[in-house]
């Protein structure tokens, strides 16, 4: 289950003639490694807590508004 479209790179041949494909492939691979390294960390707790609080606050205000 990848977020990436694997054919993304081949679909942009019109972008520029001067970059050869394999160099492009190296860069694409590195970009994905960079993302993977962050994504593998998962979502930091502070963001989960924040969303939880926002959700909670909204539910409370909805409840009191009715």
């Amino acid at each position, binding site marked *: 289950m990848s977020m*990436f479209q694997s054919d993304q790179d081949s679909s942009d041949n019109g972008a*520029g003639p001067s970059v050869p494909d394999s160099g492009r492939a*190296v*860069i694409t691979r590195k970009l994905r490694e960079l993302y993977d390294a962050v994504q593998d960390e998962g979502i930091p707790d*502070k963001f989960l807590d924040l969303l939880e609080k926002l959700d909670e606050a909204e539910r409370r205000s909805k409840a009191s508004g009715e």
Partner: protein
Amino acid sequence: MTQDVEKDGHNFKREMLAALPNLRAFAISLIRSRDRADDLVQDTIMKAWAKQESYQPGTNMRAWLVTILRNEFYSQIRKSGREVQDTDGAYTSRLSVPPEQHGSVDLHDFRQALEKLPDDQREAILLIGASGFAYEEAAEICGCPVGTIKSRVSRARMRLQELLGIENENEFGPDAQTTAVTAAMGLR
């Protein structure tokens, strides 16, 4: 009715959670400081939550969040009136990267090369090459023509290849070296 609203709210939160790791990867790759990137992600979550009415359920949550994050990023730069620089190299040193196979580009080197790109080029290549957006989506996110995105990506790729010393058709390794040597000898 209340049921529906509540259900929408839960879907919104769930969609947002699903999009967060990728959004954070974008932020951390775009900005040199991880702390700043996380602050920005936090601002984005709050902004997005506040304007969730304007999100159309089932549309592209990732694109929507990236647009908010990006706007926030540039508005912070404008406000502070300075370029965002990581002068102490905190960004590059924070993530320790295990040594890779011989003959491949080290992720640390790649990160440093990426930092040398102008913001607009780095942003474009991240959106296309890593976030996996289509050119049209990236153009919409950045509020510029598709052709502009294409040329930024193209320039970013060329510059990265230059910085990383990636030569022509071959990736590194013996073949590329041999080719380079042969080519050099041929010139004499």
